[in-house]
């Protein structure tokens, strides 16, 4: 079954401000900001990861049940892909 991996897009221009990251692109006229758990998820995506791997890392970090955050993490990844901050790749 193919697995989808997610990774920060190389086109992103980013800067960290404490526990917040500011992101933009050359062709994007504004900035987006990721803070809190979204910031942690973003940092995990510096290297390609599956959504399960992101969920497991965040669950461990915040000491919560993985099932509780699965849906939120998937929604976040979907949004990041939609805004082209993250690239997704199907792997066999």
């Amino acid at each position, binding site marked *: 079954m193919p697995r989808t991996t997610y990774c920060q897009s*190389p086109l992103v221009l980013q*800067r*960290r401000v404490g526990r917040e990251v*500011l992101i933009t*692109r050359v062709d994007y006229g504004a900035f987006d900001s990721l803070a809190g758990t979204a910031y942690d998820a973003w940092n995990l995506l510096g290297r390609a990861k599956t959504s399960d791997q992101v969920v497991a890392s965040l669950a461990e970090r915040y000491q919560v049940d993985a099932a509780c955050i699965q849906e939120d993490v998937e929604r976040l990844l979907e949004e990041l892909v939609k805004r082209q901050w993250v690239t997704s790749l199907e792997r066999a």
Partner: protein
Amino acid sequence: MSELSGSNPLGSVILKAGLIDQPLQQAMPVDQAVWPRVLAEVTRQRLTGLAIHAVEEGLIALRDEQMDELLIAQRKQMLHAIDLERHLLMASRTLEAAGLDAIVLKGTALAHGVYPDPSLRPFGDIDLLVRNSRWRDALETLAQAGFRRRYRDPRPGFTARFGHAALLTNDQNVEIDLHRTLVAGPFGEWIQADELFDRTTTFPVGGVELLRLDNTAALAHACIHAALGYRPPLLLPVRDVAQLCLSPHLDWDLMRRWSCYWHLGVVFEHAFKTVAEVFGSPLHDGSVNDSLMENRGRRDVLALQAYTSQRRRYGGKATATILAIRGVRAKFQYVGALLFPDRDFLASRAKEGSASTYVRRWLIPVRWLKKRWRPALNEHRDRQPNPPTLGDPK
């Protein structure tokens, strides 16, 4: 007195953050009474990223409201930095399309290529170095992309022959320093900047590989910036020198050659001395310093003083440049352009409400001479024995 300098404990802790282990008993608090001045200075010196890092490392203890203010200052600097990077990518694309190589200098290059996290190294403009022979082409190409020169040349072609860079701005006030060499003045005359195109590497920004100086050439440039840039030196260029001193793949033999052929030995010594003062100890083997200084001459020392002493304020750089320029004809061209600039240049330099005349311009070097010689004359007068008076017992 500044609330932040390399010699006070807070400045030292911030400057070393993320570079050198700092065993502290406990985090250093910042008194609320001095905090506004500390924040202003940290912001002015572009040390917000390093200050946040020092807090994260537990070296500085800030109150919540102090931390919030520091984060706001860092946010502003980071937004500016990534906005500049956006313009840098567009400018490099334009230059590349015109067949022009450009090396990214200082801020962006160091932030991405040398510092472990670009958030630690804010910057306020874009610095690009192009080959001397293509500098005018680059100027025209960037003009087509909306970047215009802010200042006129005293005479056409002055910067292309004697200057170090042109400041370009666009309608969004983004600044590009388009360099043909690394520094203004005598050292700029001695440095063969085109040779630096053989000392480059690449770094990625926004999916594009850009050229930067390799670590050795970047260290030489950081020393130049720290030693000859501002007086007193800003702390961030000093940190750049320290960061590069501890970076891998440094070619000290090449630094020795540049010390000799480009007269940079005194500049390196001055920069390393400043780093040692600020960091409390040298960051490299002391014998390296001695070998860099082997070939220094009196002319090099005088040239350094044109930047680092009071002479800087009174035409020191201009007079030192005359001595460094090769050929009598070129020397006359330089002096001629400064003394007899074209009318448009004079008008652009006139202060509001005052007329621009050649006489006013010629009075500038006269004032320099008066100010430079006054202390010497005073000293000479003080050394004269007091004339005898009527009340003198002799």
